[in-house]
C-alpha cells in the first residue's frame, strides 16, 4: 500500500470511514462546484488511458477550476474501490491497489518477461538515456534481438536520440506507457533510485561529460545527444504523437 500512498497528492487514511469521506467532500465542495465534479468524473471514467490536464481543460467549460476539482475528486475516491491516480503526469481512474486479489480474472496474462528483458528494462529505466552498448557493458552480455524486440513490443522503451560519439549510437529511454504501467508519476518515483544514485554505481566508466546520474525521460535531448533522423524515429515503437493518447 505504500506505493499507492506515494501516488496520491493528498495523503489520507486508507481505512477512513465513509462518513469521514463526506467531511472531506464538504471541505472540497467549498471551492468546487458539484456539477464540475460530475463532468470531470464522467470524462475520466470514460477513458481507459490517462488524460492530461490540457485535454481535460479543453473538454470542460472554461470557468472550471480544474486543479481544485481534480483534487476534490481524488479525495472523494481515495477510500473507494476505484482511485483517481496520477501517472506520467496525467490522470486516470484505477482500481485500488489492495484489490488485485479480487480482479485476477480481469488480469491480462502478459507475456512473461525473461530475466534478461527485465534487467535490460531496469538498466534503461534507471540509466536513461543509455545506448545498447552501455546496457551490454553493465549486464556483461550481448543483448539478443529477441530480448530487445520483446521490450520494444511492450511499448515501454523507445529510441530517443543519438549519442554524439563515434558511431552515433542510438540512445534509449522509457515511455509514458512505462510510467503508466508501473503506476509511476515520474521517473523520480522509481523504487530504489536514490540508493542506486547514492552508491555511485551509476557514474564512472563513462567518459566525463557523459555521466548520467539522474535518469530522465524528458523528451528534450541532453547535451550529448542529437536528434534521431526521421528515418530512425519510429524505428522503435513509434506512435506518432496523436496516437499516444489513445
Amino acid at each position: 500500500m505504500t506505493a499507492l500512498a506515494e501516488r496520491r497528492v493528498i495523503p489520507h487514511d486508507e481505512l477512513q470511514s465513509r462518513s469521514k469521506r463526506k467531511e472531506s467532500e464538504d471541505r472540497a465542495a467549498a471551492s468546487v462546484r458539484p456539477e464540475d465534479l460530475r463532468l470531470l468524473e464522467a470524462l475520466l471514467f470514460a477513458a481507459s488511458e490517462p488524460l492530461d490536464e490540457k485535454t481535460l481543460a479543453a473538454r470542460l467549460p472554461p470557468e472550471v477550476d480544474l486543479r481544485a476539482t481534480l483534487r476534490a475528486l481524488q479525495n472523494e475516491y481515495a477510500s473507494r474501490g476505484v482511485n483517481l491516480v496520477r501517472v506520467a503526469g496525467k490522470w486516470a481512474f484505477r482500481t485500488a491497489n489492495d484489490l488485485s486479489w479480487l480482479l485476477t480474472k480481469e488480469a491480462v496474462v502478459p507475456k512473461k518477461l525473461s530475466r534478461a528483458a527485465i534487467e535490460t528494462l531496469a538498466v534503461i529505466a534507471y540509466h536513461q538515456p543509455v545506448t545498447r552498448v552501455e546496457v551490454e557493458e553493465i549486464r556483461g552480455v550481448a543483448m539478443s534481438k529477441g530480448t530487445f524486440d520483446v521490450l520494444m513490443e511492450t511499448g515501454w522503451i523507445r529510441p530517443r536520440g543519438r549519442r554524439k560519439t563515434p558511431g552515433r549510437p542510438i540512445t534509449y529511454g522509457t515511455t509514458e506507457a512505462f510510467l503508466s504501467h508501473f503506476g509511476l508519476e515520474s521517473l523520480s518515483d522509481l523504487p530504489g533510485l536514490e540508493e542506486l544514485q547514492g552508491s555511485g554505481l551509476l557514474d564512472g566508466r563513462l567518459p566525463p561529460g557523459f555521466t548520467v546520474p539522474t535518469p530522465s525521460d524528458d523528451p528534450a535531448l541532453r547535451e550529448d545527444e542529437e536528434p534521431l533522423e526521421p528515418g530512425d524515429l519510429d524505428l522503435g515503437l513509434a506512435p506518432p504523437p496523436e496516437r499516444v493518447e489513445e
Partner: protein
Amino acid sequence: MTPDADIKAMETVAAEFAERASGEPALVVDVEGFEGPLDLLLMLARQQKVDLSRISILALADQYLAFIEAARKLRLELAADYLVMAAWLAYLKSRLLLPEAAPTEGPSAEEMANALAWRLRRLEAFREVASRLMARPQLQRDVFARGDPEPIADIKRPQWSATLYDLLSAYAAQRQRRALAHVSVAPRKVWSLAEARAALERLIGRTEDWHELDSYLLTYAVEPALRPTVLASSLAATLELVREGAMEVHQHSAFAPIYVRKRHAPAAGSAGAGNGAPSGID
C-alpha cells in the same frame, strides 16, 4: 576449501547450471535463459557469503576456473563468452599471483580485480532495482483501468494504424526470409580472436594489452584443432587494423610472440612509446 572439495562443489554448481539451462533448445547454454559470465560470477560470489565489496577476486577466479573445468568434464557446451571470461580470469590470476615486476602501462592487476568487483556490485544493484520495479503494482495485473471504456471525442486516431517499426520489420523479415531461402549458412566453427576480443571488451571493458591475453584466449576459447586457422586469420585481421591505424603490432624476432595493442589517439599521450617500436613484421 581443499582443492578436491572445491572441484566437487563446482561440479554441483555445473550440474545445477546444466539443469537451469536444460530448458533451452539450443546447444549453447547462454543467450535467452541464462545471463552470461557475470551472472555466473555473481552466483559464485554469493557463495563466498561476504559483502560484495570485500569479495576475494582471486578465490572467485579459482572457483570460476574450477567451474569451467567441471563443465568440460560434464561435456557441457558453454557459450563462448564463458570461455573468454575464463581466459581473462586465468590471466588476471597469473598477474595477481606474480609480483608486478615493473610498473607497466595500463591498469595494475589489483585495479583490474577492483574493476571486476565494481562491475559485479553494479550488476547486483541493477538486479535489485529491477526486482523492486517488477514488484510494483502493475497495470492490468494488479490495478486495472476501466474495462469497458467509452470513446472520448477529441482523441483523434488514424483509421489505419501501422507504425514505421511495423513497416520496417515487415520489410526486413520478408527480405530476410527470401534471402535465407536461397542460401543456407552453415553454423560457423571458426571463432576468430577478434571476436573473442570483442566479447572480452564487453565483459571486462577495454584492455590495454592483448598480447599475453591472446595465448589464454587460444587455450580456453578455441577448439584445439582450429587454433592454427584462428591464429592465421586473426593475424590477417590485425594487419588490416594496423594498416588502418587502429592497432600497433611488433615482433622482436622471427617466430617470437607477436605483440599487438590498440593504437592510442594522439591526445592520449601514451602513444609515444608504441610508435617507437618497429611496426614491421612479415
